[in-house]
């Protein structure tokens, strides 16, 4: 019988499958680094994993705490700086990058800056970080959204997707041909972008999710692929790797915090006893 998996493990492996052997990959913290670690360990041994702080060609041993975490690996091949990491991206040396999303519109434009009015925000989010340049110049960009929202109009355009759709991104003359978001991964499924209209469509559903459930979260009339695939389950080997490498990622944030707090209190009590 195949091994059972968590939702987070399914998402991690879905992202990992976007990495091809030999790719130069920019990884953000959380799901992407775990995805990169799985890919490198199991099916893309020649991928070059990079973090925008200038850590190039690393093999994480534990999930990095942030994008400058040289403690998460045992050495790496090339130390450069953030400026050069971005110009490397600008020159087209990055094959795939991973970005988290707070708001997204149907053409894959993203907002990670603010919900509501910019000057008087409902929610002030982290901001751009490296996202705009990565989404502009990486050959492919995998977007991940958990807890974010689909909107007709973004409250703030942080990073450019396919702009107004169609050939508007290409026509702007600002971005390399073929660049832009290549997929959006959510807790319900996988969306891709139509080759001509550049509008996102539902390409894949996670097991147990229906098209209706997805439509409920989307304010426009969502296009759906003629044959929607079901996200393949992770293999036993993949599950074992992820759960051993990044157990806190496997269980999801909620359970991690719950168990983490219990553990901290328990240790404190033991210290008092001693």
């Amino acid at each position, binding site marked *: 019988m195949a091994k059972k998996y968590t939702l987070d493990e399914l998402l991690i492996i879905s992202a990992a499958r976007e990495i091809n052997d030999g790719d130069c990959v920019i990884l953000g913290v959380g799901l992407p680094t775990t995805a990169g670690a799985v890919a490198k360990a199991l099916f893309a041994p020649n991928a070059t994993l990079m973090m925008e702080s200038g850590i190039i060609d690393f093999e994480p041993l534990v999930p990095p705490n942030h994008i400058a975490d040289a403690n998460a690996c*045992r050495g790496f091949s*090339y130390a450069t700086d953030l400026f050069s990491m971005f110009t490397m991206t600008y020159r087209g040396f990055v094959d795939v990058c991973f970005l988290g999303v707070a708001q997204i519109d149907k053409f894959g434009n993203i907002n990670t800056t603010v919900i509501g009015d910019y000057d008087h925000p409902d929610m002030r989010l982290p901001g751009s970080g490296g996202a705009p340049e990565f989404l502009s110049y990486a050959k492919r960009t995998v977007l991940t959204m958990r807890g974010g929202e689909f909107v007709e109009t973004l409250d703030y355009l942080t990073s450019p997707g396919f702009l107004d759709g169609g050939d508007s991104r290409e026509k702007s003359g600002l971005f390399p041909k073929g660049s832009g978001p290549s997929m959006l991964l959510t807790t319900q499924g996988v969306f891709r972008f139509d080759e001509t209209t550049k509008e996102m469509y539902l390409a894949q559903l996670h097991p147990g999710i229906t098209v209706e459930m997805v439509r409920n979260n989307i304010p426009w009339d969502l296009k759906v692929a003629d044959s929607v695939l079901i996200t393949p389950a992770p293999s036993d080997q993949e599950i074992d790797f992820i759960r051993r490498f990044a157990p806190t990622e496997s269980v999801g944030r909620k359970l991690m915090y719950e168990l983490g707090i219990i553990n901290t209190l328990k240790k404190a009590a033991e210290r008092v006893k001693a």
Partner: protein
Amino acid sequence: MINPKSKIMTAKEAISRFVNDGDQLIIGNYTVSTCAELVFEVARQQKKALTLYSQSGIFDVEILVGAGCVDKLISTYVYRAGGKEGGSAVERSLKDGSLSMEDYTNFQYNARLMAGMHGFSFMQVPEGSMVTDLFKRRSFMGEGKYKIIRCPYTDKEILTVPSANPDVCIVHVQRADKYGNAQYWGAMGSVAAAALSSKRIIVSCEEIVDHEIIKSSPHLTIIPAFRVDAVVEIPWGAHPSEVVGYYNLDKVAYALFLMSDMTGDGLKAWMDQWVFGCPNRHAYIEKYMAENGARTIDAIRAKAYYSAPANYGSAFDSCWDNQGRERTMGVTMEELNTILEERGLLRG
């Protein structure tokens, strides 16, 4: 299949695969660690119509111009031997019209590579050169050698140079792994920018080392593997120039070359003997030792003065502690699996 990503090959194969007639070829090294053997191999293979970039073109430029490989030269500093009676390959070729040359300052030349390395189309350089003949006299680059623009912030006139992205860089370093991670230390010059601005990169090194050595010293890496096309192990690959940690400048050999270079016939005789007369660097060094004695080579061999090791370690290399408990959540894998099952978090 031993390793699909190994880029190790001979100098002969690397030059024949990655250097084409008509290419813009850049010498990666600056003054020291000259990629002598790769230069020799370009000469042996008689590559033609090259546009040659060299920050400071003495030994390398003289050989390639002398061998008739170069039509155009971009440099900041070229060699001339022997006072009024002397000369150089560059001077002879300028005189007979077979070479055109574009002069830049050291900084401007380097700025062009920095722009190319970072993907910018030009770079601002100090404006003083506008009054000089470097600015006024232009050869094959014509209008494109420099341009003046108005700064949008200060409204002042600023001098710019265009970016450079040569077709291929040849560069010699101390060590590299088989994937192409190239480590170099000493005078940094414009070595990294020369390599990283180029479309293809051929690295020669004194030693090919295990990947683990590279991983434990990433700050010595100047060219990452994913940019490199070929790795060639060539001990003594920079002789008669020096490689810190391996050997010193061979002043005698260098002086003999410079004396020969005073005349076209002299240079030709020297190259017949040392470049065309030796199929590779091994043969060159054997010949050198046979003629001058092994002690000549031993006398310039470097004694060790090791860099202090830097600690790249961290507290742990696994999420699981020695008792098999996850460090944040404090549970064993078995307990974790039970919790996931009980909470109904498992699917499939």
